[in-house]
């Protein structure tokens, strides 16, 4: 999309009919006033003056203003407009300092230490001026074909209108879709159509807000790409914003009238149930209000709804949404006497290593990851310890791979064959050129693999059947979460590495299934440490360097930006900063930020971030609403019935199972609830599991006419009789 800035911008803000006639503005020429009327909030009027001195002159990128005494709302982060000879200069307010003629602190002390107490007021107040630095975002010349770098002259300063902010953030130069990333709040009042300031329910003035949009071509490629979040865990709201931005990307890309595009996302859940309930709305449905309230899920606030509206977004959960997880250690399915484990027939959702395991909440959402040995043989450096993997072991692993050994069972058979070889030839020290000590060592190490990669590695062959796989093509708007939160580090690194490598390969083969794929990786400093040899470093660096051309973009987050590979950060077209700790902020990674900005970052509240983007000449603070989905822990309480809280009625799980298998024939939620009324949660969950197994078996045998509801009713009646 090519957006162009209209030469005569509509004067929708700042000047209203209620202001009266279009009167001259002191300090501003008629030409300036006519050319830039839509950029300045004339209703609020002049808020200060540009000031330049010999020591601190106005420059192309930074200048100074002093604020009018009664302009008490002007503050850091606000966007203002000043003027050079032939251009409007739009910038972000930064670094406030109050100046007075007091030469030293002691002067004030002695002023107050005459006969009077310190509380006494002096008859004359020392004049103080509040001076702000302003970092230039953009200039707008009288002529559209001229780019001005001339610093502003001493003269009036006004608040910027949303039009000015839109221009300053370069939206007229966007080649892609504008994706709302944050909401900027200025110091001037938003106004009604009559021109009077808008007031909120408390009677307070509502401040002017404007969307901070990023260019999709610079977020998702091909011009630039990738986004990075940094900040303290639990305080910086990195994941919340990544989800918000992902949702915004989905909505805006899908609805681009000129070029609708399919986007999907792949995320790794590394902490608790953080990303497990992204298909559940933040706002409860009517029958879940009590459950949400008990779980501490407050839903969206009025300001969140307003923010979504202001940003042109809907607060909707992700759909389709799928979770992939390995099994719990020791619960990997095993089939006696069979060559392969058929996951579509035998896996139990509760056996998966994920917090989301309530019946009714897993079907159609949670799917297993289970590997046979073959997958590990291709990455011996990730499977065996560095000290173990010498040339000899590497050679034997290659031999095993070339013999197309695919499972642990087959490997055991091979070792048995080797044993027979040595028994038959007791004088021989080697088998196929491999020394028997090497073979003994390999056998020992392979033996430990099922334990080392507990829950991920099957001893048998694995058949997924019709089950979705984590590395298959993506669908439009799909959010795919790989849950590795409960896995040990070995499993975590292997899964992340393997999945990303496979997805990367799909991208290279143009087999993603969507136009753009977002890969969200938290804890980047673990997977791609600066200067280190992290398991995923090379792949992530490659994605950062080439991903935008292959339609794969990296959304990365970490607590310590300074400890992440600089090649990844350097390739990020968009960076966001939440609250940062003081040990971290002293690092060179933050040297381009002003001291005030750094100080702000030290105490940044939740929901407020600093954003850099390829189109922005200086970083800007903004806020974002609560994510459109329920928080992980709250979702766990509501939908997984944990924490002793009132969750979803257990009959809802049964209804979901029945509805999934019976489709349109399924009864209503109320009907199921009425029928199952009186049964406890455990009983209903048991019935759910049996109905699910039965339906799956019937389906596998091609018996499509069988009703899951019929079976459920039968099981319920049996339970009732048994309890009598």
């Amino acid at each position, binding site marked *: 999309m090519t957006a162009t800035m209209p030469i005569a911008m509509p004067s929708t803000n700042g000047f209203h009919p209620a202001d009266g006639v279009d009167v001259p503005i002191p300090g501003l020429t008629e030409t300036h006033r006519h050319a830039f009327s839509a950029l300045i909030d004339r209703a609020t009027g002049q808020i200060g003056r540009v000031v330049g001195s010999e020591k601190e002159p106005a420059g192309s990128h930074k200048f100074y203003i002093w604020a009018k005494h009664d302009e008490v709302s002007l503050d850091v982060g606000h966007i203002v407009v000043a003027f050079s000879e032939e251009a409007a200069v739009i910038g972000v307010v930064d670094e406030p300092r109050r100046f007075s003629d*007091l030469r030293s602190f002691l002067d004030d002390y002695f002023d107050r230490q005459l*006969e009077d107490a310190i509380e006494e007021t002096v*008859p*004359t107040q*020392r004049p103080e001026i509040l001076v702000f630095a302003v970092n230039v975002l953009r200039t707008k010349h009288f002529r559209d074909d001229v780019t001005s770098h001339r610093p502003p002259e001493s003269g009036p300063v006004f608040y910027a209108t949303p039009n000015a902010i839109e221009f300053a953030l370069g939206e007229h130069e966007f080649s892609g879709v504008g994706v709302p990333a944050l909401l900027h709040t200025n110091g001037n009042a938003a106004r009604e159509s009559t021109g009077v300031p808008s007031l909120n329910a408390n009677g307070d003035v509502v401040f002017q807000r404007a969307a901070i949009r990023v260019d999709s071509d610079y977020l998702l490629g091909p011009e630039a790409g990738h986004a990075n979040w940094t900040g303290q865990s639990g305080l910086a709201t990195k994941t919340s914003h990544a989800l918000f931005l992902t949702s915004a990307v989905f909505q805006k890309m899908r609805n681009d009238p000129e070029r609708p595009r399919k986007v999907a996302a792949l995320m790794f859940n590394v902490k608790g149930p953080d990303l497990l309930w992204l298909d559940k709305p933040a706002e409860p449905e009517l029958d879940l209000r009590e459950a949400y309230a008990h779980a501490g899920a407050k839903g969206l606030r009025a300001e969140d709804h307003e923010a979504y509206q202001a940003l042109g977004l809907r607060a909707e959960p992700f759909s389709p949404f799928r979770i992939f997880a390995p099994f719990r250690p020791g619960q990997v399915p095993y089939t006696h006497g069979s060559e392969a484990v058929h996951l579509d027939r035998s896996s139990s959702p509760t056996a998966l290593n994920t917090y989301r395991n309530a019946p009714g909440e897993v079907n159609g959402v949670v799917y297993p990851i289970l590997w046979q040995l073959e997958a590990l043989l291709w990455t011996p450096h990730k499977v065996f310890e560095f000290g173990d993997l010498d040339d000899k072991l590497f050679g034997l692993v290659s031999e095993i791979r070339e013999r197309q050994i695919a499972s642990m069972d087959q490997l055991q058979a091979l070792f048995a064959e080797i044993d027979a070889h040595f028994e038959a030839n007791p004088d021989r020290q080697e088998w196929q050129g491999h020394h028997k000590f090497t073979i003994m060592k390999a056998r020992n190490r392979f033996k430990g693999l099922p334990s080392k990669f507990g829950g991920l590695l099957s001893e048998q062959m694995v058949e997924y059947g019709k089950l979705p796989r984590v590395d298959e093509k993506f669908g439009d708007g799909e959010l795919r979460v790989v849950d590795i939160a409960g896995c040990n580090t070995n499993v975590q690194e292997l899964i992340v590495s393997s999945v990303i490598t496979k997805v990367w390969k799909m991208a290279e083969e143009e087999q993603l299934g969507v136009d753009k794929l977002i890969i969200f990786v938290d804890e980047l400093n673990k997977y791609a440490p600066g200067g280190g040899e992290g398991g995923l470093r090379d792949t992530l660096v490659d994605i950062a360097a080439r991903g935008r051309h292959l339609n794969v973009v990296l959304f990365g987050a970490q607590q310590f930006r300074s400890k992440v590979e600089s090649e990844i950060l350097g390739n990020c077209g968009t960076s966001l900063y939440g609250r940062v700790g003081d040990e971290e902020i002293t690092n060179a990674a933050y040297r381009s930020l002003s001291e005030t900005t750094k100080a702000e970052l030290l105490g940044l509240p939740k929901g407020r971030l600093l954003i850099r983007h390829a189109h922005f000449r200086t970083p800007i603070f903004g806020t974002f609403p609560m994510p459109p989905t329920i928080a992980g822990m709250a979702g766990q309480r509501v939908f997984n019935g944990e924490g002793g809280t009132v969750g979803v009625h257990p009959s809802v799980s049964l209804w979901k199972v029945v509805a999934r298998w019976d489709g349109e024939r399924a009864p209503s939620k109320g009907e199921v609830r009425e029928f199952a009324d009186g049964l406890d949660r455990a009983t209903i969950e048991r019935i759910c599991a049996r109905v699910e197994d039965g339906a799956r078996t019937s389906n596998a045998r091609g018996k499509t006419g069988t009703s899951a509801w019929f079976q459920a009713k039968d099981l319920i009646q049996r339970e009732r009789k048994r309890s009598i």
Partner: protein
Amino acid sequence: MASVGARASQSFTVQVAEMAARLRRDGVPLADMRSSESLELTFAGAVEVRMPSADADQDAIERIETDPIIARVVPGAGRGSRLTHFLDGSQRTLQVWRIGLVPVATTIAAAALLCRNAAGEVEIAPGTLRFQHVWLIPRRSGQTGLGDLIELIEGSGGVVVDPLDQVDDDDVYAALAGDYGKLQQAAYVKAREVREQLELKLLDDWENGLPERRDDEWLVVDGRLRSDVRNAVGLVKSMSRQQLTGHEAATVFDLAPGERTTAFRFPLSNWRDLGTRFDVEAVGATGKVDAPTMWYLRLHNSLGQDARHALVRVEAGKHVRDTGQIDELSAWLLAERAPRATSDARWATLLYPIHLLEEILKRRVDAHTRGWPAAR
């Protein structure tokens, strides 16, 4: 303010440069002096040095409260001060050219009233900021080219004042006009008069009720009170002349912080300055009837300092005679000790609002002469 140049928007510096070019084209022998310092700097601190004389006529002094004059502790803390306005002026006299023996100078004078509200916030009282821009050129010097210059200035609306205009005798005039140093000195004195006239006009306005104010509000004038106006006091910071002698003078120098002398009046004939509006004829008859009431006041501790440190002379109208009122005025002035204008070397006797007003006026004058070579 008079405009000299063809275009009002042109800076003064540019206007002067254009005038010089034109005069040179017309053959006027100009020597550029724009890089020399201002006359205020030239004559800064200069006092007329002469043999000390007992020029104070002690018999002419009227001791109002006590006889002899004594020290007195100012009661009260000065709360509820009604000092709400402050008057001061500033000038900058620039040497521009020399034509033959005659230095051509120009002065920019500014004066204003500073208004202070109940919250202690100050601003220039609306309508009181006055500017006067004057060229100082002797009209009767006979120097070739001066006439062309005067014609050029007055032709473009500028104002020319003769620094020797009070010299009637042609011989004396010719002698002074041929003395470069004395002409320069006369220009400085005239420039000072220009500024004093501005201040005096503001004092007249105050007497006439401008700016608008309550009846009980008072004005503090920086320097001598040059006119007998109501609700105004002058604050004299320099003690170049000693009115009292003997024990009474010692009483002045012995004043402790927060103490004042009892009030007195002094014959006007001893007053140095021109332009006073006190009734000279009346003084001639009585020697003291219309003279201002004055007293000394020590603002800060002078321990280890010159005897005149933090010592000011307060002048008030002739109607101020009551001890209670003088105490009250003194208390109000003492309350002005904080905040201190420590960025100015005269802070011990300089009231902070006056200091602010000076800063404002200096910046206004500087703005008017931006780009002047002497400022670099």
